[in-house]
């Protein structure tokens, strides 16, 4: 597993400078994109194809808070819980069911728009919680962060579903 923070010469932490990330992305593209090696040897082409793929993947991983958090945990040697592991969290399960019901009940554009706002607020809060847990590399905090990342993933998926439903209503 490659350390993407290292590849982008960024500090190994959850809070990163997004402008710097983009800046380094463009520098790395200019250095490694296959078009720069269109007339190079096969060996060079292969080498830069691999590197450029990592540059692209790293950018998409580091850009989004969830994948960045997960990557940080992997770099720290923390094993991420699988979907089955999170099923045990009864409280979170209840929360999920409540959200699903609320989404099912929301049939007007206004109700759905309110859900979008609520969901967004929770995501912002959630990111702060995760950031706090990840600010120290401590076993207990890392585990907690992994749990919170799982919740945040659900909220992002839910946000997509709300948007899709909203689109359907406003389109028709």
């Amino acid at each position: 597993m490659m350390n993407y923070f290292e590849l982008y010469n960024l500090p190994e932490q959850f809070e990163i400078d997004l402008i710097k990330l983009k800046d380094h992305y463009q520098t790395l593209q200019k250095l490694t994109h296959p078009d720069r090696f269109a007339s190079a040897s096969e060996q060079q082409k292969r080498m830069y194809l691999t590197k450029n793929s990592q540059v692209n993947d790293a950018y998409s991983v580091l850009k989004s808070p969830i994948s960045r958090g997960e990557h940080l945990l992997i770099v720290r040697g923390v094993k991420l819980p699988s979907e089955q592991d999170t099923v045990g969290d009864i409280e979170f399960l209840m929360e999920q069911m409540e959200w699903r019901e609320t989404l099912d009940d929301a049939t007007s554009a206004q109700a759905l728009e309110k859900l979008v706002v609520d969901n967004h607020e929770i995501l912002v809060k959630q990111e702060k919680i995760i950031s706090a847990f990840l600010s120290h590399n401590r076993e207990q905090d890392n585990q907690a962060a992994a749990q919170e990342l799982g919740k945040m993933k659900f909220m992002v998926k839910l946000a997509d579903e709300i948007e899709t439903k909203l689109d359907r209503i406003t389109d028709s």
Partner: protein
Amino acid sequence: MALLQIAEPGQSAAPHERKIGVGIDLGTTNSLVSAVKSGQCVTLADEHERHLLPSVVNYSEASIDVGYHARDNSNADPANTIMSIKRFMGRSLADVTAHWDQLPYQFVADSISPRFITPRGELNPIQISSHILSALKKRAEARMGEEITGAVITVPAYFDDAQRQGTKDAAQLAGLNVLRLLNEPTAAAIAYGLDSKEEGVIAVYDLGGGTFDVSILRLNKGVFEVLATGGNSALGGDDFDHLLASHLAQQLGLDAVAEKQNHRRLMNAGKEVKESLSNADSSVVSIQLVGAEQSTQLSMQLEQFNQLIDVLVKQTISTCKRAVKDARVSIEEVDNVIMVGGSTRVPLVRQQVEVFFKKAPLTSIDPDKVVAIGAGIQADILVGNKPDSDMLLLDVLPLSLGIETMGGLVEKIIPRNTTIPVAKAQEFTTFKDGQTAMLVHVLQGERELVEHCRSLAKFTLKGIPAMTAGAAHIRVTFQVDADGLLNVTAMEKSSGVKAEVQVKPSYGLEESEILDMLKSSMQNAKQDMQARMLKEQQVDASRVLEAMHGALAEDGDELLSDKERDAIDHALRNLGLCAADNDVDAIKRAIDVVDKLSQDFAARRMDKSIQKALAGHSVDNI
């Protein structure tokens, strides 16, 4: 007489030697080739100063005839005159005949991918396309007076892996070195220099002879993202001609039999009317009917013509509407509209497009040539003629890639619009105890069910060590390159056994088939071939030597141990000796040795350059 140039010892003999990169627009109806000449990208004409090459091939025992002659004589030999071969690329025969029945061709029965029966034997779409590409290559070589270093070939933005791979294979078969496959709308945007802008939304309206495509692109600092595409693969300028022809027949009072008899003459007259109405309000055409002594004069007003084609133009506009909606942008967000394809010369088309997008479309570049010109500009950069160019084109995967899972569902591995190149690994495990093989079905598309996606390939992973169910961990890596082409490798993790991957492209050709075709097409010229291979290897050798000496001078002391340095120096000396000799295989082996020995060195140099560039940035930012 020009003075001889002598380079400084140890330096490249001709550092600014220009290489020829060509752009090729391989179209459904017409194709073009372009190149940069004295700083300007232009399309290249044939010996009769015609720039277009009709994408039509006639096969007879004596010859393979590509272009105008084949097209104009298609009525005489319809079964062996292949038109619109692009529609067959990467498709099954059933796919194509579902849209176009009554094709005059003869196909090999029991073949899933189309195989045409011709006097030159059974031919597949890749071979037929390669004949068109060969004709363009020949034209470019004649016009530029030099060998072609490489080509950028355009493809529709919605082309999937099989269609892209087929296009690339065809080029390889034609002896072209493919620098890059480029999306047609992106090429049009490059021709207008829009890639130098920071960001914006671009609509490309492409109305060709027989196809209509609209693409909505988002440009963000050199990244062209295809937001949406739409179109109608059976609507084009030829339909305008059809409408005009039947209108003229009506005016002449022809019955169905006479109309059929005069079909070609009516179509030609229709085309003439259409073209003259592009810059006039009325047109007079004379038509001589079959068996008539005199020709008849007919006049037509622009107004009448507009009424005739209005319904077709409206169809294209409603397709645009859907594409804009799919792209989730508003009309106001579209910054530029580009016109592509000869049929966009029709005034009503321009007018309607302007009304819909609320801005005048870009038309200053010949709409027939704009895609080829964009491809040529990119080709010139990729062959290295503009080392200082900052332009970097990033593309995205047009359609999601996934694999079949239990229950006929598709699990997405790489979603559409991911910036390419990209590599993603996925782990699989065995279902039964002692299982030693596994079938992986790779698909492309956005739908959830296997039957709704395009089957790209089936891989059989063999040689998995027998273990209990679920114990084997097979890591399958999907690598998509800058052309959007997929390559798959697999490995069993716990044992480290590299599983054998058998690639069976659902449509298209195996690498070995291409090699065989290349060989058989060159058998006649075997000696030529050997001489050419020797020359190519020698050029390769001198390139490797030059690059390595440069790299060693720069970083050899810093990045290599004495032992490593000695080994590389020795291999380079050996390569130098081999290159002076005539043994193709020996040169090849010597290059391989240098490659292997210098692999780590090359990687260290790459990492060093990256660290240096990023460190420089960090300092700047403080």
